[in-house]
């Protein structure tokens, strides 16, 4: 959290481990929201395996929620895809911001860019740039948390019931609000 609270702090750990450690509270939220997605997707008739594959490959919570919601309401394939793609258009902007920090050839840059999420992007802000090591460390932890939550929700969701009972549905907008509020200042 230190980098988000004190954007110009000099004691920020600029390693993958540092990013992994600082993203821990956000990863807790990603786990819980992943459970909600798993339950929603299964209720939407997506089965167990497809939501898990989606969390591993799409790795973007709001778009996955939107696609599952459209399916749940019996919407068309085109509507589900369009909802998800519109939400994920912001990743073009995030990609532009991440691009100068990535390394290597195109295939490697493409792979590393997939670890950019709203959360890992926020955690990796460092003096007006994205820190590649923190982005990767935070992104990997988030991917594990998000997918683990999805597995738990898709497999065990029926025992848990409605995520709203636990207030899980409020945690997603609350997390985004926190990402905005704790956003690092731009350099002067």
């Amino acid at each position, binding site marked *: *959290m230190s980098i988000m609270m004190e954007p110009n702090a000099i004691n920020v750990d600029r390693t993958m481990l540092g990013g992994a450690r600082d993203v821990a*509270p956000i990863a807790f939220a990603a786990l*819980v929201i992943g459970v909600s997605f798993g339950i929603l997707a299964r209720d939407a008739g997506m*089965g167990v395996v*497809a939501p898990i*594959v*989606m969390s591993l*490959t*799409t790795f*973007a919570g*709001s778009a996955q*929620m939107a*696609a599952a919601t*459209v*399916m749940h*309401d019996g919407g068309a*394939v085109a509507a*589900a*895809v369009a909802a*998800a*793609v519109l*939400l*994920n*258009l*912001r*990743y*073009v*902007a*995030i990609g*532009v*911001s*991440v*691009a*100068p920090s*990535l*390394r290597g050839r*195109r295939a490697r*840059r*493409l792979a590393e*860019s*997939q670890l950019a999420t*709203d959360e890992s992007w926020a955690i990796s802000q460092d003096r007006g740039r994205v820190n590649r090591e923190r982005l990767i460390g935070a992104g990997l932890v988030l991917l594990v948390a998000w997918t683990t939550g999805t597995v738990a929700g898709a497999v065990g969701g029926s025992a848990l019931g409605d995520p*709203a*009972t*636990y*207030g*899980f*549905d*409020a*945690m997603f*907008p*609350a997390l*985004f*609000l*926190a*990402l*905005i*509020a*704790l956003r690092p200042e*731009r350099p002067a």
Partner: protein
Amino acid sequence: MSTTWLIVVLVGAATVALKGLAPVLLGARELPPPLARVSGALAPALLAALVVVQTVGDAQALSVDPRVAGVAAAAVALLLRAPLLVVLVASAGVAATVNALT
């Protein structure tokens, strides 16, 4: 291919492309500062829109439900400079409580 898998494949491919577009096409080139500032400001602005959609959005309509109380609790916790974990637990706890009471 079933409808479900078609959606998983299409959304997955589109997201991989959207995330990777700039890193693959731009390479490691530095952006002109004005463009860098815009891209840095765009994501938080879009996040703000997502907060609204996920707080009062329903499939096709607006809905005022316990999520609003949960997000309000998160806002108060953020103003009080509470740690992130406290902010998140407060949002879920308040939303769950309002959900149980209504």
